[in-house]
């Protein structure tokens, strides 16, 4: 099947990584059912990986259009702050959620307009919100950690549904929903086409401007959801640290997912596996009990190994090497036969 073939490298990397972590921390795969909840390191990965996985969904679409969205970490902080402020103002759960999501959509609209209407390069356009946005979040929280007690809202960060943590459901459903939307409608094709050749697509009648704005808004919405998860989890909006550097992990997840930064063909599922690979590394390093100062170095090393193994050049070399050996062996066998 083509989907399986597409995501095979990511799956292999994930399985190999899980095997590696299981060696240094044997209990990694053990899952228990306690008080109606699944508990275990793997469940922890699926929950803690939620923010990056959510960001990776939107980031995959943006990157498919040959863009990039550096502002998603900051949008998380703004949306979390807006939702927390709404709760603190006595708005109740549903309006607070809506305010957070709308803020994400507005942030995406801003990015999309800068990129398409004004024509700023995506890197620079989203860099503006990335640097400015944390200031906005700090203004909303008035520089402190804005806490709340609404248990309904907190459920989005720490609740459980059918045994699984709610954040895990959120990214699984968002990912599946967006992936289906892309492939069951023509959106996926149109996004790939503007990512590969925007000019030719526009000449063929593809509405590149509207599509691009929609894609940045989708990324903003994904970031808003991630921000709500993080805020709900700690029951407070931390403008300084919520989503800090997560845009880079999200981009990394998309790249590990085998999606080209030059745009075009994309796979959301592969990006999601990429996000899980990153979280498995993070959690695995913690569980293995390395001193914390080694964390980033080990993470970088593992990511490097995964990306090198995935690179087309290595794949070509490997095929060459394999074929030449096959030829050698056949030649030898022939020699014997003679």
């Amino acid at each position, binding site marked *: 099947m083509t989907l399986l073939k597409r995501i095979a490298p990511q799956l292999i990397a994930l399985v190999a990584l899980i095997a590696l972590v299981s060696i240094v921390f044997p209990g990694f795969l053990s899952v228990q059912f306690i008080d109606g909840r699944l508990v275990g390191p793997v469940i922890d990965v699926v929950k803690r990986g939620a923010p990056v996985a959510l960001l990776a969904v939107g980031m995959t679409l943006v990157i498919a259009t040959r863009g990039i969205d550096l502002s998603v970490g900051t949008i998380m902080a703004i949306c979390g702050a807006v939702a927390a402020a709404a709760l603190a103002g006595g708005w109740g759960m549903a309006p607070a959620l809506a305010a957070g999501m709308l803020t994400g959509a507005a942030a995406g609209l801003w990015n999309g307009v800068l990129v398409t209407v004004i024509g700023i390069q995506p890197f620079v356009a989203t860099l503006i919100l990335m640097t400015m946005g944390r200031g906005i979040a700090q203004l909303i929280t008035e520089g402190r950690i804005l806490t709340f007690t609404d248990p309904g809202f907190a459920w989005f960060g720490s609740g459980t549904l059918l045994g699984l943590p709610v954040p895990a459901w959120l990214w699984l459903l968002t990912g599946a929903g967006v992936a289906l939307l892309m492939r069951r409608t023509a959106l996926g094709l149109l996004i790939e086409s503007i990512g590969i050749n925007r000019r*030719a697509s526009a000449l063929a009648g593809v509405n590149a401007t509207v599509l691009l704005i929609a894609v940045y808004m989708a990324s903003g919405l994904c970031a808003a959801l991630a921000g709500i998860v993080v805020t709900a989890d700690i029951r407070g909006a931390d403008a300084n640290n919520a989503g800090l550097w997560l845009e880079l992990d999200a981009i990394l997840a998309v790249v590990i997912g085998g999606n080209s930064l030059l745009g075009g063909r994309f796979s959301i599922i592969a990006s999601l596996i990429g996000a899980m690979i990153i979280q498995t590394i993070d959690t695995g390093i913690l569980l293995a009990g390395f001193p914390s100062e080694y964390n980033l170095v080990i993470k970088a090393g593992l990511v490097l190994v995964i990306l090198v193994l995935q690179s087309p050049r290595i794949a070509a070399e490997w095929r060459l090497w394999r074929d030449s050996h096959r030829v050698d062996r056949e030649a030898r066998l022939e020699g014997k036969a003679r």
Partner: protein
Amino acid sequence: MLLSIRSLTKTFPGTLALDGVDFDLRAGEVHALLGENGAGKSTLIKCLTGAYRRDGGTVALEGAQIDPRSTVEAQDLGIGTVYQEVNLLPNLTVAQNLMFGREPRRFGLIDARATRSEARAMLRQYGLDLDVDRDLGSYSVAIQQIIAIARAVALSGKVLILDEPTASLDAAEVQMVFDVVRGLRDRGLGIVFVSHFLDQVFDLTDRVTVLRNGRRITTLDTADLDRVQLIEHMLGRALEDAVGDAAADGAGSVRPELLSFQGFGRRGVIEPFDLSVGQGEVVGLAGLLGSGRTETAELMFGVRPAQTGKAHDANGQLDLSNPRAAIAQGFGFAPEDRKTDGIVPDLSIRENIILGLQAQRGWARPIPRAEQNRLADDYIRRLDIRTSGREKPIGELSGGNQQKAVLARWLAMNPRFLILDEPTRGIDVGAHAEILRLIRELTDAGMSVLVISSEIDELVAVADRVIVVRDRRHVAELKGTRLGGDEIMRAIADSGEVA
């Protein structure tokens, strides 16, 4: 003889780009190099400047054999080049650009003051008094072009190649650049001048060499040449040739009008024109490269919206402000440069064919996969697109097959007015005839088609009526018995009043 080229040959996979070309350049002359696209002009120039290595033949500069392997080597030998796009650094100052790479030094560091004074001295030779500390980009393209010439001459100093240096200049600026070029000629440089503007060729040059299909057709003194003769050489078609009147059928019969454009124009792109298109009619657009053919199509399709004028059909005025609007009016446009404007390389042939139709239906109504397959297979068969299957990325097809797939994209949308810009360029002879036959089929079914082509025989064969474009103006309309190769060429060549 300053530069002497003998039987220069250059092959690329599948094509013989230069086929034993001879070319002589005297010191103190401006020598025009002419030819339509694909004639071999740029290949010849690139062999001279070291961008390409020649496969055969000899090049002698002042009697000594040379074989430059890079542009730097060619410069050191004395051959400098100035391109259409100014090839300098707009965000550096004029002085830095002029002295780039050979700045005067003091204690091992760049001596800024000496750089400036040397730059000023250089420009004075050209009668220019500029602020050399200003960024190059702040000056007009003409000034930048002269600075590029000054730099090239300073670096090389024997042969100067001007590759369409005037393409983006207005008339006054052209004269400014020409004055500089004439000054250099009088100083004894040999100058090769490539341009599509015949007026400029007659204005500036001493001799003309015409290339066609990689061969040298002729070299003549400009003074002995007339326009018609020159265009005959360029297009390879003698005026005395008998012209079959293939367009006789339908000529004369009145077709119901489908569209009319009135005063359609855009400043600096194409002068306002009137054009009406009949139902089922093939209108041809003839003219040399850069004359305004493609620009006419781009205005009609909203790629560059018209600033003046209106377009109507029987039901009223049409909005043609962008390609989507034009498509909504039932327009289609298969552009000349299919690589950048036509294909979406990584997508499959199937996806490329259905792309336009899908965009028209909107994202929410995907074309069912079975329907996509049927459309793709249908057009692959009808247009004889050579491929191992519909799922092959279109970027892997040959040029002619890519062109057919782009055509299929538009046919799948069934437009009422289809614009084809050079539909047969780069297509083999068999496919060529097929595409012309296809155009006839489409118009028999009621579609109206605008065909832009450099091949006059092709236009005569396929068009009911031919509009001739020259110097960004529609200058003649030929139909019926007046529609023939001779007439088209005369209209292209005519320098004065409307034919």
